[in-house]
């Protein structure tokens, strides 16, 4: 039996700024809370392909695992938590504007 599909979000880095972005239904967001949550495997694969085709806007597109707190997406691995927040030695990255 194949492993059951866990919820995902399409993520990448912005081509110009290089910062972490997440796919929404009609574009990209810098805030994980606004990301499109993918719960169906076939749909997730399709959205990944669609994201990857935007070569003039984004770099390094992949599917990241999330957990759902109600409807709000939460990171499940510390690497994604750092990507979503910024470095721990300075208040830089996403935490700077937060």
């Amino acid at each position, binding site marked *: 039996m194949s492993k059951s599909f866990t919820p995902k979000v399409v993520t990448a880095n912005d081509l110009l700024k*290089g910062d972490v972005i997440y796919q929404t239904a009609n574009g990209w967001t810098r805030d994980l809370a606004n990301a499109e949550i993918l719960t169906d495997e076939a749909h997730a694969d399709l959205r990944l392909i669609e994201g990857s085709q935007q070569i003039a806007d984004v770099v390094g597109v992949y599917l990241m695992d999330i957990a759902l707190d109600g409807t709000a997406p939460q990171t499940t691995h510390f690497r994604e938590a750092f990507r979503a927040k910024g470095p721990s030695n300075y208040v830089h990255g996403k935490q700077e504007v937060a």
Partner: protein
Amino acid sequence: MYTYNDFDKSFIATRNSQFRDQVERRIDGSLTEDEFKPLRLMNGLYLQLHAYMLRVAIPYGTLNGGQMRQLAFIADKWDKGYGHFTTRQNIQYNWPELRDVPDMLDALAEVGMHAIQTSGNTIRNVTADHFAGASADEIADPRPVAELIRQWSTDHPEFQFMPRKFKIAITGSPNDRAVTRAHDIGLRMVEKDGEAGFEVIVGGGLGRTPMIGKVITNFLPQEDLLPYLESVVSVWNQIGRRDNKYKARIKITVHEHGIEEIRRLVNERFAIVKGSFSGIDQVRLAQYKTHFAAPDFTVKAKAVFKDAYHSDPIFRSWADTNLSAHKADGYSIVSISIKKQGDTPGDATSDQMRLMADLAETYGHNELRISHEQNVILPHVHKSDLPALHAALKEQDLATANIGLISDIIACPGMDYCALATARSIPIAQEIATRFDDLKLEHEIGNLKIKISGCINACGHHHVGHIGILGLDRAGVENYQVTLGGDHTETAKVGDRAGHGFTAKELVPAIERVVDAYLDLRTGKDEEFIETYRRLGLAPFKAALYPEAQADAA
């Protein structure tokens, strides 16, 4: 110092203009990321976790005040007002935007600097002893040779698409401060019957499979250096493995074929290559030597130094810890710690960079160095200027007296920045440094090198730390493995892995237990940690790291 001639200037300008064009084509979508990536890497541009990162070469760690000031300007204009100095004598900017990078490269070119071959499968920035040209124990200044290697390796047509990256380090001193035994090629300047030459070491490296380099020839005449280097890289370029990136470095090639076979192949290749060198390299080398002529050392009274040393305990502590013996009478080599306890190892703010540039111009014959231990060196300061220098350094938090001590930690950027990292390094370094500073123990502990890497690639040199720390991802949790007894010097040794890893929370108390064990076990204050370790081996330190195992056995 080497200054660019018209050829150098035009070469860099052409290269920068090509890259500007490549960036434009990437932005307008004419180049895919797969096409652009090798081009940006050739020019030192990475994409990291939160942003791009530009790695700028500081060739053999040498720069002048004007260059340091320009690095500060770049940090303010296109980054977040600081830079990170690395274990390979580079500076990294962590926050540039893609569109700005061509301007940053042009700004570097204005002061004779670049980011070429600081990444990619090329010959990287050649590194050297950071005390070169100043140290009392030196045979000769290795930097003219390092410059020759830089010129030879930059854009070398045969070596642009190699199996993997290739790193060369050189020292002119018998005391190895350049980690030559952990480089793809390490060069040690030696003399035989009054003739200058090199001991050539190949196949060293850290990373997933740490290896101490092997001597391929114990005396290479100076004029044979470039053809010999070309032969070594050429042999590896042909037989080095391209099927598996973890087996591609020359250390694996040497390990798989054996040093005798590599020596035979290199000699065979050398017989062909040697004839293609017309001798122009030796003409150039003679020119470069004039660029690196020693400054005019002045002779003046040292009374000011002696007075301050006896009257000011803070100055005395700094002088005892951060100064090294200079070859010229009345002079010292000053190591400026950019590792105040609790700060990020290797980071300097633009204000700090400007101050160091000013001080180099005022007191240091306009020379600065970056050490592989991520500190900044003023190689030539007269002792009588040291009290004023120290007072100025204090203004910018640059007077920390911890060179060689437990808080003088090498740490890679780790998962706070690096896309390859498996765990964070910086917070671990900050916690260890702060803890031992709180205990007021570090001067009592003495010389102890802690080196931290946030992944198996070992940019933080953990294998050759007296205490090495490797951060890993264990089932989604940061976990830290400890190695003990490593050595990065002329007696290089890979440390012994102590046992299972620790969580971030468990790690600092574990390090404290190891240090307590050392303080209990040492014969006296003059027996350094590494000497106690060599005398007693792993067992007593392992027992200190894992007290629960002792309890179970009892």
